[in-house]
């Protein structure tokens, strides 16, 4: 992994969530992120991988080291083939929850990263991409 620029890990169980957090930590350190940026990125990854497992019925986290205008960044993609989200605007509202959570996962993670993209529709799974630039 020390020289790889991209990869993929499964998000199919709780131990996988722990592993995805640890992978993101390693990647942030490789990019020399500040401690606050690293903490934010790991926290966002934790929220989103839990969403992938709980709401998406499991899926994967893909990662890539990206570059834009000389800046390095870490991009993560959380992908599942679950039921999808009917109302994206609602799902991105603070406090709205489909289950027993607090409804902070999506809107909260969005605040923790530089770029946030979500693509989902009923029956078509959910794909969330986040990027943190150094």
């Amino acid at each position, binding site marked *: 992994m020390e020289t790889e620029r991209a990869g993929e890990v499964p998000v199919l169980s*709780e*131990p996988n*969530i*722990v592993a995805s*957090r*640890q992978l993101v*930590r390693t990647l942030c350190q490789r990019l020399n992120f500040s*401690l*606050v940026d*690293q*903490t*934010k990125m*790991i*926290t966002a990854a*934790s*929220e989103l991988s*839990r969403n992938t497992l709980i709401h998406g019925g499991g899926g994967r986290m893909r990662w890539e080291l990206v570059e834009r205008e000389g800046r390095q960044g870490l991009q993560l993609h959380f992908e599942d083939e679950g039921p999808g989200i009917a109302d994206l605007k609602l799902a991105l509202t*603070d406090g709205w929850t489909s289950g027993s*959570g*607090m409804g*902070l*996962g999506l*809107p*909260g*993670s969005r*605040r*923790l990263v530089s770029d946030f993209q979500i693509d989902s529709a009923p029956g078509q799974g959910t794909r969330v991409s986040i990027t943190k630039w150094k």
Partner: protein
Amino acid sequence: MERIPILRMGKTLLVTIQVDMQDQTALALQDDLADKIARSGATGVMIDISALEIVDSFVGRMLTSISSIARILSATTVVVGMQPAVAITLIELGLSLEGVRTALNVERGMELLRKARQESHLGN
């Protein structure tokens, strides 16, 4: 699944979270603490999270629940040692840990518990 050990020091239960917890581990800690407060008659709970690199919404919710459960069982909870980067991230995530008492370190946490005991005349 690992379980987080709970130590007892007089009327205080002490928990030091040193591992990156699975959600089930966090839930088990909540149950174990409630059980131990009721059985031991502890009036204080101190949770040291100085080794935690992140607190996400799940762990944040667990800390809030433990505080509420302990309060109903007449014990005061104090969360100590949160790292500054974790505090910054929590607030941006949207969690304010309402109802959770915090202290900078173990020493100040002990002081807070001692004062809480005096206030409620529960003795030491």
